[in-house]
């Protein structure tokens, strides 16, 4: 198993759960090819269809209020009129086609970080194995954990329904080793579902990467997507969202986001609406200390937050405030640590060295990089190796 073991630091954010479901505004970013079907200034309800993204997913209003389309900034702004909508639990049964269109119209996409439309994942060929990813291998993040703690039974029920609808033979809930609380809870609850197994995976980063999971649990490899082997991997929060769509016809409009990090004044998990400005929530949770980097996503793969513009997306797992780093880059001593630990088994140091050498890049295959960041994390000379690899990737694409 290739990977590195990182300090988990999960306890920081586990003390509290907060709710911030009534923001004054939400903002939905609209990319160039998305279609907006609503007229400016119209009044919408929570869940109203506002348009459609180019990947087929609907753009739904997370709150009720007045829509303003700010075309120049490419965002839809909705001003909250604080009207609430209730969702009731129903019991209906679906065919595979009905199910697929349901999760499509509920706007469900991967909530573990990738944001890939879920209906595309499931519409493919025959699925025989479902792997539910509850690993959360990046430090600090506990959004999935909080989601399980609140909805464990509901999630397992959803998994069982999915297995019925899609005729999936077996499913695994992958959790990190040495999480006794989580393990016990899931094992007790799954005891009546023999086809749902709980598996512990080693406490390594990037164990939550699909390829690692499939390799560890099913002992097989695939080229591009796990569906090649009849396997689908879904994040556990995504499963929860699917359940909400299945049982309550509630679309994906909110999620749990972890606010954590050494520089976060009041670390906690927060239920928030999609589209809420990060700054607004930060103010609500008492903000961050000075001299910190505010990051969206995990400490390994996350990016610096643009406080003026960035909003919560369905794939936003966490907002972290970490101490600013001031490491100085030194010369590459060719220690080989980056290469030894690269989960894609490429040679980042060599890619960096040959950034501008197309024929060498072809051989070094930077496209296999999953941007996990291990190479930069581990480099004793504090070189930003991943950035170099990503540059090389771009270089390759151009050719």
């Amino acid at each position, binding site marked *: 198993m290739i990977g590195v073991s990182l300090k988990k630091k999960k306890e920081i954010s586990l003390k509290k759960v907060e709710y911030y479901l009534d923001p004054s505004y939400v903002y939905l970013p609209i990319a160039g090819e998305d279609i907006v079907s609503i007229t400016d200034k119209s009044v919408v309800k929570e869940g109203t269809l506002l348009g459609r993204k180019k990947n087929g997913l609907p753009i739904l209003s997370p709150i009720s209020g007045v829509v303003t389309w700010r075309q120049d900034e490419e965002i839809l702004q909705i001003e909250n009129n604080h009207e609430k909508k209730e969702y009731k639990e129903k019991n209906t049964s679906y065919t595979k086609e009905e199910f697929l269109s349901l999760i499509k119209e509920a706007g469900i996409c991967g909530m573990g970080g990738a944001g890939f439309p879920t209906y595309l994942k499931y519409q493919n060929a025959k699925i025989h194995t479902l792997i539910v990813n509850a690993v959360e291998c990046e430090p600090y993040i506990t959004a999935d954990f909080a989601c399980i703690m609140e909805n464990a039974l509901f999630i397992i029920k959803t998994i069982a329904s999915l297995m019925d609808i899609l005729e999936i033979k077996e499913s695994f809930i992958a959790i990190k080793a040495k999480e006794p609380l989580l393990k016990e809870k899931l094992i007790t609850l799954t005891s009546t579902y023999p086809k749902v197994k709980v598996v512990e995976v080693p406490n390594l980063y990037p164990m939550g990467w699909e390829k690692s999971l499939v390799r560890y649990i099913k002992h097989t490899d695939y080229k591009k997507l796990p569906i090649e082997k009849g396997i689908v991997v879904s994040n556990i929060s995504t499963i929860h969202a699917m359940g909400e769509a299945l049982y309550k016809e509630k679309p994906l409009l909110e999620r749990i986001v972890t606010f954590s990090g050494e520089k976060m004044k009041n670390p906690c998990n927060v239920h928030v609406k999609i589209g809420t400005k990060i700054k607004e929530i930060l103010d609500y949770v008492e903000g961050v200390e000075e001299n910190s980097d505010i990051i969206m996503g995990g400490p390994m793969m996350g990016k610096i937050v643009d406080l003026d513009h960035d909003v919560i997306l369905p794939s936003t797992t966490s907002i972290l405030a970490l101490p600013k780093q001031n490491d100085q880059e030194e*010369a590459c001593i060719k220690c*080989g640590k980056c*290469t030894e630990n690269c989960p894609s088994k490429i040679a980042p140091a060599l890619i960096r060295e040959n950034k501008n050498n197309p024929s060498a890049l072809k051989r070094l295959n930077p496209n296999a990089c999953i941007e996990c960041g291990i190479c930069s994390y581990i480099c004793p000379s504090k070189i930003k190796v991943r*950035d170099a690899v990503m540059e090389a990737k771009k270089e390759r694409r151009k050719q």
Partner: protein
Amino acid sequence: MNTGPFIKQNNTTGKMMKNLFLALLPLLIFTFYKNGLLPFIKGYATFYGMMYPLLLLLVGIITSYFSEYFYFRVLKHQTKVEIKEELRHSFPIFPGLFLSLIVPYNTPLLLMVFASFIATFFGKMLYGGFGHNLFNPALIGCFFLLTMYGGYIAKMGGYFNTLEMDTVSFATPLSNAQGVDGIGSYATLVAPYGTLWDFFLGTIPGALGETSALLCLCAFFFLSFKRVIKWKIPAFYIGTVFLLTLCIGKANGMGLWYPCFQVLSGGLFFGAIFMATDPVTSPITSIGQVLYAIFLGISTVTCRYLTPLPEGVLTSILTLNLFVPILDKIGSMQGIAIKKVAVPLLACLFCSFLLIQNVCLKYAKKDATDSNFQIIDKKTMGKETTYVVTQKGNGGLIKIEFVLEGQKIKTMKVLEEHETDAYFQMVMDAAYIDTLLQNQEKIEEVDTISGATISSKALKKSIMNVLKEEGILR
């Protein structure tokens, strides 16, 4: 802008270098003990002689530090503050430190300055400084020192400290081995220096700091555990040398002691653990590292048997440094490409292995047929076999008659000789022939007679040759 990751492993190049220094510390102490303190206590060295290893170390370190300073100051025109910052990231003492562990004890201080300067200035800085050099700087320095002044240093006493000069002053183990083309008995190869245990502990003559395999091994485990060095390189390097010499030893009828002797001498442990793993000059990819190590092993063994270089570690590492980019190229091939390379590569490895094997076997045969020995007559009558042979002594050929019965030589008679009378008389007086015949089962261990070495050796050799001819001795 910071692009992440926003956490970093708690490890820096500086820490790695610190650990490396820690691992070297016991070796430094050992070299001081073995080459300084011990001769001093036993009364073979003066106080200055005792401090000499430390002096070499100091001179090496200071020179290499100032060589870098000089480089930044004169060639780069940097200010003192800038230089201070540069030197903090460039670890200027290491070339000199390593160098002082691999030079002979009798290197004059001035030459140490020379070597350390070459190592740091030419071997490291002119390539662009820390992280950019192609060759291992310390080895470059040592290489220049030995090729230019090796003879001079040898005259000064070479690798021997004052104690060793008095007690075991013939040659370092591998030079001694090379005298017999690397193939010999335990008695000729190991015994003069003690036992294999001494080889392991490092109480044998050799370069200053590299004799103790034990300490090197400890350092290996420490550094591998701390993930400072690429552990695959020493493991495969020493493994390859062991395997190859095991085969050579087996082909020549020698036991397990032979490969042990080979890996424990010539600074192989030190070279494999400290020099071959120098991160900057070794491959990055793990396949590259394994190939590098295997080729190092092959090259070292080749050097030891087929070239005048008795040790081969220094030369092999410098040579293989040159191939690191190619090895990394192979190591970084993905998927199918590697399969394409694997076959020719394995073939290449196999061929070099065969080559070494073959050549070494030829050596062995040549050694078996002593050119100074000739059979003139051989008769078999019943159980008895009579040989009449000639063996070259110091005054021409000695003609000897042997009568063998079964596996044993019954009689040995000198028929004709032209040796120097006095010497030959000494041999006869010592009843040397009887001694030889009585000890013919362990003939190799019989000492020659000092004062009449050549004559007595000729007699001994003739017996060995006859026994070999009969297939009794291998």
